[in-house]
């Protein structure tokens, strides 16, 4: 046995493979458990869950697992005609998070054009309407503001080819204000640094073509310090490692072209130990309950590091690279 800091220990038995077929089966079956409570408990996250599952399947090179027409029908059934945008489930109110997931799914399946011009315009109006004067974005009319939503707004408009300086410039200014003394970023100006917030800020700056604003000399060491004994990555100092940070931290390092700053082989082993070797799926830490969120971010982390012959994933958009290549990049010739 060897020990991770903060009382987590993982078995020294080295598991050398990613259980691709088990993970495919696990994701495929998530939608067939409609009689399970868990299915209904996650209704409010269904659009995000679908995006996580589809992106994991594409990264595993099992893109034909789901029936494409059924997926697109579900996405379109979540359209909120009153406010524009997409909800997490049919008849739910639209939110910027479920809207991005819907747009990502449509783009991944090459079906963005299925939206008629009127809906597309309404969608763009919905997203742009959530931006406040200071450049930040609200998630919906409830009014919560967070750098997560700035990234979500920019990513969504970028995929739709609708970014303009009027949107980008204030958003960049807001993100710049969220940078802390340690070089990392928080959810709003002055808020504690957090690796997931680092991802959304760095990725948003990448979309805006403004990575020059990142304090790389401070941020890269902060990100590399997220790796703990045992190989996993955490989100803040002294927190436990969690597989999802294999994405939030790694993608940030990848965008900053600094993946070499962490021990990739150790992280790979940590992700492997979080697999359910019987039923498939990946959990946050070894022996915990698996879920589709951690399954995607474990697989996506492995893809970023170039392991297991996975489909290359784009660190900014968290979508297959070959699909992201078709997105027009803002501010570049």
């Amino acid at each position, binding site marked *: 046995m060897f020990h991770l800091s903060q009382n987590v220990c993982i078995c020294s038995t080295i598991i050398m493979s990613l259980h691709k077929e088990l993970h495919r089966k696990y994701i495929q079956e998530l939608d067939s458990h409609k009689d399970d409570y868990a299915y*209904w408990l996650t209704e*409010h996250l269904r659009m995000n869950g679908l995006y996580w599952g589809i992106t994991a399947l594409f990264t595993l090179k099992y893109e034909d697992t789901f029936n494409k027409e059924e997926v697109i029908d579900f996405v379109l059934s979540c359209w909120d005609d009153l406010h524009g945008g997409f909800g997490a489930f049919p008849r739910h109110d639209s939110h910027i*998070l479920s809207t991005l997931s819907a747009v990502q799914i449509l783009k991944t399946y090459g079906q963005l054009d299925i939206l008629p011009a009127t809906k597309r315009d309404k969608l763009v109006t919905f997203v742009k309407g959530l931006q406040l004067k200071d450049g930040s974005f609200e998630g919906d009319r409830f*009014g919560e503001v967070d750098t997560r939503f700035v990234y979500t707004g920019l990513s969504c408009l970028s995929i739709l080819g609708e970014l303009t300086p009027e949107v980008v410039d204030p958003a960049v200014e807001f993100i710049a204000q969220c940078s802390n003394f340690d070089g990392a970023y928080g959810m709003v100006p002055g808020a504690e640094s957090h690796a997931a917030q680092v991802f959304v800020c760095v990725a948003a700056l990448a979309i805006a073509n403004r990575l020059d604003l990142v304090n790389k000399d401070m941020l890269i060491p902060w990100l590399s310090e997220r790796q703990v004994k045992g190989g996993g990555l955490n989100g803040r*100092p*002294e927190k436990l490692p969690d597989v999802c940070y294999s994405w939030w931290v790694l993608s940030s390092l990848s965008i900053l072209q600094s993946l070499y700053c962490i021990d990739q082989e150790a992280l790979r082993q940590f992700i492997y130990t979080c697999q359910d070797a019987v039923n498939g799926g990946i959990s946050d830490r070894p022996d915990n309950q698996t879920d589709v969120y951690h399954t995607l971010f474990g697989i996506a982390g492995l893809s970023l590091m170039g392991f297991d012959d996975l489909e290359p994933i784009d660190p900014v958009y968290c979508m297959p690279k070959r699909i992201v290549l078709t997105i027009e990049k803002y501010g570049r010739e």
Partner: protein
Amino acid sequence: MLDDIVLPDSTVQAQLELFWDIVSNECQEGRKYLIWLDLESSKFFEFHSNDEEQRLDIVIYKKPMMKLFPTLLTVQNQLIADNWDWKTISRTDAQQTDKLYKIFLAIVPILFINNESHTLVLILESMVELLSIPNNKVLRLLQCLLTCSRNNINKSSSYWTFLRKLYSTNSFQQSIFIDTLIASATIHRKSYYCWNFASFFATIEFARGADLTPVYSQVKQFCMRNLDYGAWKVLCEIIIIMVSANTNQYWLKEFERWNDNNNNNKLRTPNNSGRLHQKTMNWAEQELFMLSNYIKSSQTESLIPLTIIKWVYDKLEL
């Protein structure tokens, strides 16, 4: 339409009404603690006074609650069904508001299960307004949510945002919020949104002209027990505010945003509030010296809070 919505049977409705009473009423025992237990029971919840801890324990039994959940979710989904807007019902129609109130009671327990259902939060906010639910009851509900035993609920960014919004648009006692944040931080160590709320709260309290000494004292006590980075950062922010009146401008703008059309709830100017309860640089130096010594002498695996103290020294140019 509202009339078509099928409600749970009368036995369940009676339990739902009692549940709302318990989570929303003032607690004589001190405070409430809502805990989930993985046990079978004939009811989905029970409550009892915990004299030792000076609190009211509310126990939700997972198995009956999970059996009840699809019924409650069906009520919610009937409410948001196509082709009509429930928010247009007449407030003066007693029959309709009574039905809506019963729907509200069915929806409240879902808040303790689905942590980030944005639609549910919007429903709650609209219902509170339509049914004129008193703000102090909403505050107690949020307290129960944010101090409950389930981490995905007590760390919900939507619920913490709701608390900031409610705090901003009302005048409640300072101690209620201090109790909530310390109770939540104790249950869920290193809670990101909890300590961001604390930062917001200290900033606005100061700008409202309140004395930050009680907040400082409680957060300091917590820090002495926990080398929690977020808590120490807030402690240091409070020192900066008390000495220099230098506050986080973003939080002030957020407060103004929640009070966009409310001229009765404006903040004092920073200069005024600064004069009211300002501490001296000497005080700050003594505090920082004591805190540094505490960290260095404590048997801890981490010296991370020292980096935050260094940040205060730089910020105050000490």
